């Protein structure tokens, strides 16, 4: 299996599918087939993955770009799980868009396929220039998905999204160029070994931070996210929450922590400070939202703040917890956006006040929504718990204050999610517009079933996900300790 270039194949399959759509149309089936093929490949990838090493696996290295940079791919456990997550969500996104997209269907499916290729590229790049290309190119399909297939204020939202993320990336590019000229290599594994001087580390760290903080997004550069989510079509929100936001966390893991350990320790107060503000601030804002998608978007910011806290605890539990939290958030908030999509497709509104009493006509939907609500509030036995618990446990080692403040967010999380659930699902069904609303269709059930299964799998037997992370995270903890203050 090692000789077979599976990562390249996974990048090429969606591109090939796009080409087929361009040539022959039949967008839905082709896109589904392409993403499903990639999912099968992802499963094969996982099954052949060696949990007992921190080294990069399935590596490919071609010097097709001359001396400037190389086509260098490879994954560790962290990247592997994020690739599996992307490949898992994509077919569901295609299915979710099956009926709701009416205009420019071919282009829409192509945008998703190209995005999948780029996402897999981001998570498997071992060359810093290659990474940058994938990282930035990933913006474009998302920009188009929001700008073309989005809601009423889509232009504003897509520009905001683009400006924010691009602005951050410019600084990162400068930092990357400096690193290359200083070290003379574009290889990520080699850069991890290269020791930058302490004061240089600080500037480089800040430049990368500018990019990743926007992507996460961290407070106060989070305001693009609610707008982007609200305007994006359902599947766009799923990918945005499920995969794109993970690029920020992945960036911290791949660059900031191992390459600038000293700066990470010195500047940890920025991360902790902003994350603590984010947890409380965005949770309170989520409490007063009137738009379902905005509420979930704000809850995403709060959840991602847990991720940043965990990453910078510099210990095994905190970092593993945050990766698990990323995976879980990808599944759960993706699923919650799909839940909103279900009723949006029927009623064409996301106003919470327009709903109420849905359980009367949609019992299956009520159950599905309840499961994801509980996963979102971190009920033990669901995926949401394990990550959150490990993050807080790790944070407690780093600072009791951080753990204390973040744990308050867990209380608020329960308040805004259950209040949302109450207003949408419970109550008597009094609104005339809802009297004929129909329960989940078979297609929708097919979409939710695997998501539910994963939510419980990660909650009850998270070992499957923690094992591949063991070695890479242990190595990372080691790397951050070498140059670090402790």
């Amino acid at each position: 299996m090692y000789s077979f270039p599976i990562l390249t194949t996974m990048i090429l399959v969606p591109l090939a599918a796009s080409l087929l759509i361009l040539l022959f149309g039949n967008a839905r089936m082709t896109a589904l087939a392409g993403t499903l093929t990639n999912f099968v490949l992802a499963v094969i990838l996982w099954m052949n993955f060696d949990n007992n090493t921190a080294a990069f696996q399935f590596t490919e290295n071609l010097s097709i770009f001359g001396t400037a940079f190389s086509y260098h791919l490879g994954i560790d456990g962290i990247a592997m799980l994020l690739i599996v997550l992307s490949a898992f969500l994509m077919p569901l996104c295609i299915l979710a868009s099956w009926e709701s997209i009416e205009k420019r269907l071919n282009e829409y499916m192509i945008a998703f396929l190209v995005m999948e290729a780029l996402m897999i590229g981001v998570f498997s790049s071992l060359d810093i220039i290659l990474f940058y290309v994938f990282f930035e190119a990933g913006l474009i399909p998302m920009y188009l998905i929001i700008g073309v297939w989005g809601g009423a204020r889509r232009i504003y939202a897509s520009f905001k999204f683009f400006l924010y993320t691009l602005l951050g990336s410019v600084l990162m590019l400068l930092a990357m160029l400096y690193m290359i000229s200083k070290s003379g290599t574009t290889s990520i594994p080699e850069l991890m070994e290269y020791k930058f001087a302490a004061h240089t580390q600080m500037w480089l760290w800040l430049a990368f931070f500018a990019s990743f903080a926007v992507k996460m997004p961290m407070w106060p550069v989070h305001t693009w996210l609610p707008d982007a989510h609200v305007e994006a079509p359902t599947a766009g929100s799923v990918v945005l929450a499920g995969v794109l936001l993970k690029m920020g966390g992945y960036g911290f893991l791949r660059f900031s922590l191992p390459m600038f350990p000293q700066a990470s320790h010195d500047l940890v107060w920025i991360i902790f400070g902003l994350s603590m503000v984010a947890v409380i601030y965005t949770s309170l804002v989520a409490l007063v939202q009137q738009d379902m998608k905005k509420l979930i978007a704000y809850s995403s910011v709060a959840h991602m703040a847990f991720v940043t806290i965990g990453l910078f605890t510099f210990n095994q539990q905190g970092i593993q917890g945050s990766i698990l939290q990323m995976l879980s958030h990808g599944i759960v908030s993706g699923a919650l956006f799909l839940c909103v999509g279900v009723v949006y497709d029927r009623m064409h509104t996301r106003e919470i006040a327009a709903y109420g009493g849905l359980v009367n006509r949609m019992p299956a939907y009520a159950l599905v929504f309840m499961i994801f609500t509980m996963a979102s509030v971190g009920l033990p036995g669901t995926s949401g718990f394990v990550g959150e618990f490990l993050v807080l446990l790790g944070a407690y080692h780093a600072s009791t204050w951080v753990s204390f403040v973040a744990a308050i967010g867990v209380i608020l999380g329960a308040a805004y999610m259950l209040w949302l659930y109450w207003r949408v699902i419970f109550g008597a069904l009094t609104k005339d517009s809802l009297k004929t609303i129909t329960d989940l269709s078979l297609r929708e059930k097919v979409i939710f079933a695997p998501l539910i299964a994963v939510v419980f799998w990660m909650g009850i037997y998270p070992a499957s996900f923690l094992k591949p992370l063991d070695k890479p995270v242990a190595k990372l903890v080691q790397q951050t300790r070498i140059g670090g203050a402790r």
Partner: protein
Amino acid sequence: MIQTIVFLPLLAAIIAGLFGRALGVRFSQLITTGAVGIAALLSWIIFTQFLSGTTPYTVTISNWITSGSLSLNWALKVDTLTAVMLVVVNSVSSLVHLYSIGYMSEDPHQQRFFSYLSLFTFAMLMLVTADNLVQMFFGWEGVGLASYLLIGFWYYKPSANAAALKAFVVNRVGDFGYSLGIFAIFLVFGSVQFSVIFANAPHMAGKSFEFLGLHVDIMTAICLLLFVGAMGKSAQLGLHTWLPDAMEGPTPVSALIHAATMVTAGVFMLARCSPLFEQAPAALDVVCVVGALTAFFAATVGTSQTDIKRVIAYSTCSQLGYMFFALGVGAYGAAIFHLFTHAFFKALLFLGAGSVIHAMHHEQDMRHYGALRKSIPITFITMLIGTIAITGVPPFAGFYSKDTILEAAFMAHSQVGYFAYGLGAIAATLTSFYSWRLMFLTFFGEARWATSKHIQHAVHDDHHGHDAHDGTAGYHPHESPWVMLIPLILLAIGAAAAGFVFHTHFVGEARAEFWRAAIHPTKHDVLNDIEGIPLFWKWLPTAGMVFGLLMALNSYIWNRAVPKQFTDTFSMMYKFFLNKWYFDELYSVLFIKPALWLGRLFWSADKNIIDGVGPDGVAALVQLTAKRSKLIQTGYVYHYAFATLIGVIALLSWAWPHAGKAIGN
């Protein structure tokens, strides 16, 4: 066997929940009731094994979470404490299942109801069999979920939804403390496994660590954090506000979850963690004081409520207070004994109240009851037994457990012990008063049914009986069906006999062999001393109980003008009690309103400040710059030429020295 006990209810819950609609109501009832019934029988077998001295054991099921040095399993730990809880949980649960077949027979969503009940039972069993703090947390949150779902079971009632949300969120506040406790324990002990932390607890006594920038005693901090969790789940003063509202759920739920089992989880947790609390005397004092205050507070409120379920809810809250101050003085066995007996008589009282409500066509206000003893005699007699048991008449169950607690508090010879004894004795008097008040208002006097809207509806629907003018409105309450009465009778037997039969094991001579390592006061066992209590102090609570009964008789049988006179005279105090000491109002002002206000404030900050300075500001700035720079584009050549010249000079003057240096090198 233990696996069967724990997972059978889960299996039944899944089958009834997912396939209930296809399989039918009767099937769902039978499978859930049967599963929990089997679990109950097996639990009694395990319990008798422990009565005769079986060795505790642990069954590991699988790994759960492993990360670095943290490693924990799904495992079922069985010792005496677990065995007691198994019996309590499964016995009450199976009887409540059975009772619900009758009580819920007209509800259209019975499959869902029975599924939730069994799911609750499973979560509670996971809680009591946990061998580590995190699995206990799983059960802890699981019962919270089931409670939330069952309080809000009648989802079309806004009050039920509000109560469900409140229960979940207030419990989350408790869980906040509990989880911080877990983190602190892991930091200190490097494990969350009971066996490890209990073994190492003595080494940590008196040591301190940093918490929120303060240097605090490790064991005290850990125990207080865990206690915050217990306060939430067991509705202790401060975090009790959800429990009375939880009465919005169907009555069988109140009996099972909000009286006999879930709300005692906090007591169980503290008893389980007694090796930790033994090392934290300051924390035990806090537990004692909070428990005593709760016992007193809830009893005062209980005297003023008119809703039959709310009276019993406050009674539960008060009795939980007794259990906590028993823990606080180190009488762990007595606390669990009261938990055990309380489960019988309080489940009995709730199910009895359900039977009354059933008979009175959903009317819950005792002001519209009266004279019911003749119409529903079996309910009356069983509730009478429950009342005798809770008020502590010898030799019924409450007498053994409650008096042991009060004696232990007195014989602790500590300030907090005397404090608890004092408030406990007053609360015992009030308990007697409100319990008998409930009985007299419900079953004695003349019928006051005609004033009830529910009864009026019922009579109106029947189209007969309009001619009655005697307060009955022509309504004929019927005794509940046998499926509801059998649980009442069985629980009544328990309420009558549980104290007498088991007190030697729980708190008497046989307690050392019975509890073994499950609960063992390491320092000084206060239960050794209770024989030495002076007779006056021993019998004072009993005298208070008689006094409470006489007060109730005087107020509700002999001279019914008394309550009115009393509330008129002490109207301030009455209002204070009636409004539950204004806790809800206080919390609304302190937490809920500020949270929403801050939320709106921050949201507008997002729109106005962050976006205003950020993207929107940048966009505006670009537009402004564009406008300004348009002015520079004058079109005159000499303007441009001048600008170019300045640019060239500036460039040269900057570049020249640099270029020189480059050449020089």
